């Protein structure tokens, strides 16, 4: 019989295991936001038909956050209607409103706050970040003190703005803080912005561009106070915030305070698990595989989105952790792909960082890592017109670019960053005005001086750079 005469096929161990994983494996995704959802969709698109569990601490299906600081505060969209579109069916078991509280790497189980244990064959961690709270709890709990990161926080702040407060104080002039201030001004509300650095956005984009941002604030009627810190918030007898005290001795009378001091990574639940996770995020390789605390890469635990930090070949293999929408999407796709691939087929996450903001009617976009730079060249438009492209240089190469209402040029500069093109760019550009003839000091603050930081965190170093000292400026 032909059956018996055929040599018996010996399955290759790796292939067989992978096929089995795809067919009947258990994949758990902790974090039901943008990265988690896109990873789940990619897993299904790549033929994973096993069991998929999505764990999220908020009781909501995955939603989009960018509208929260823009359309929602302007009253043009509602916070509870920003659910993310489903690009395909994910056919998952959803555990929403239940945070993960622990990880047992040896037993391959995720522990949940309700006492349940969820076993996995592959785990993706996409727990993201949360807003950094005001450091003094008794002041943070005053009625009228807000942070803005989640849907509930966006809804609560929007509701309060609807009531027409007499003044809004925004603590921190980063992207989120500037967007809040912009929305308040558009609604006609008096706004004070208190920023520790010399100008808004200075940590992310440097002093040259930050001066333009400061001009935007002031032109739109924001009471901008730079180089000051808020030292205390004061409440009235009913527990409602009524004033803020500043380090320069002044007092701001206010009934709404928006604390916009950056974010904290949601990694506490991994404490003691043995995974290489801490306040800076989860260390992983370029393929999104997480490291354990011994520096050994795991093969079954992956990280994606704001909580991950990965070495990036274009930026000296420094570990980058990015709080960017596009990064969450790209990294989720890479993690999901690699989870279902043999080592030879795995892909690196090499996306060039990119993000956007809109404030005071201006579209601000950036590619690369401007905060790594020392120099800037205004390559198109002019600072005076607030319509320009700034190209950032570091050690003789193009490392980033920013545009104010000139976004269509950015893909071109993204390509220069990918090619590690020389800085200053050795070609003339169209629409170059007088202030763009020469590169200048990008004027990033001394890292030892506190300012509102960028949304890109650089950590770790490249062995090749051992003899160099990394100083973003000065």
């Amino acid at each position, binding site marked *: 019989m032909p059956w018996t005469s055929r040599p018996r096929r010996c399955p290759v161990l790796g292939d067989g295991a992978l096929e089995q994983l795809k067919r009947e494996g258990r994949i758990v995704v902790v974090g039901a936001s943008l990265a988690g959802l896109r990873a789940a969709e990619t897993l299904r698109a790549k033929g994973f038909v096993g069991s998929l569990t999505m764990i999220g601490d908020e009781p909501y299906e995955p939603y989009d956050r960018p509208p929260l600081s823009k359309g929602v505060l302007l009253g043009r969209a509602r916070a509870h209607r*920003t659910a*993310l579109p489903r690009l395909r069916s994910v056919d998952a078991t*959803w555990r929403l409103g239940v945070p993960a509280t622990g990880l047992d790497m040896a037993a391959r189980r995720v522990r949940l706050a309700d006492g349940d244990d969820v076993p996995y064959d592959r785990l993706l961690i996409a727990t993201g970040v949360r807003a950094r709270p005001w450091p003094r709890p008794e002041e943070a709990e005053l009625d009228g003190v807000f942070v803005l990161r989640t849907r509930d926080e966006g809804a609560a702040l929007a509701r309060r703005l609807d009531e027409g407060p007499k003044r809004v104080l925004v603590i921190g002039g980063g992207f989120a803080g500037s967007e809040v201030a912009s929305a308040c001004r558009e609604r006609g509300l008096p706004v004070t912005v208190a920023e520790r650095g010399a100008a808004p956005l200075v940590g992310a984009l440097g002093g040259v561009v930050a001066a333009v941002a400061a001009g935007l604030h002031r032109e739109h009627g924001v009471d901008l106070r730079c180089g000051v810190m808020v030292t205390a918030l004061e409440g009235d007898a009913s527990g409602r915030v009524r004033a803020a005290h500043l380090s320069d001795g002044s007092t701001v009378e206010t009934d709404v305070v928006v604390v916009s001091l950056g974010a904290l990574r949601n990694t506490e639940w991994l404490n003691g698990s043995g995974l290489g996770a801490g306040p800076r995020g989860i260390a992983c390789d370029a393929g999104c595989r997480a490291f354990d605390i011994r520096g050994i890469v795991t093969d079954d635990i992956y990280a994606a989105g704001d909580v991950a930090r990965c070495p990036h070949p274009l930026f000296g293999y420094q570990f980058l952790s990015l709080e960017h929408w*596009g990064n969450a999407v790209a990294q989720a796709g890479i993690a999901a792909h690699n989870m279902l691939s043999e080592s030879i087929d795995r892909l690196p996450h090499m996306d060039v960082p990119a993000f956007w903001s*809109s404030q005071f009617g201006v*579209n601000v976009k950036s590619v690369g890592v401007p905060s790594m730079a020392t120099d800037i060249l205004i390559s198109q438009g002019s600072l005076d017109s607030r319509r320009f492209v700034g190209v950032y240089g570091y050690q003789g190469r193009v490392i980033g670019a920013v545009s104010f209402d000139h976004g269509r040029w950015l893909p071109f500069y993204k390509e220069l960053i990918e090619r590690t093109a020389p800085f200053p760019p050795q070609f003339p550009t169209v629409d170059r005005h007088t202030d763009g003839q020469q590169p200048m000091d990008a004027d990033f603050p001394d890292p030892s001086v506190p300012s509102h930081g960028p949304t890109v965190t650089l950590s770790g170093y490249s062995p090749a750079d051992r003899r160099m000292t990394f100083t973003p400026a000065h």
Partner: protein
Amino acid sequence: MSIAVDLNRCQGYAQCAFLAPEIFTMHGDEALLYDPDPDEAQREKLAQAAAACPVQAILVDAVDKPAEAVPGAR
């Protein structure tokens, strides 16, 4: 209906704002504001806007929201 716009891709061509002004509006010269959960009556216009976007930055539900995503559901 849920939509999201990949604003890294968006180049401010404003085709969507012409075709579906109830959903998309320009905010200043270049920035885009949109309603993430437009009315069902806008479905046809939304489809046209998404198709017309030169950089295909508009993401729209491809499947109906499954009942699985109910808060607290297992």
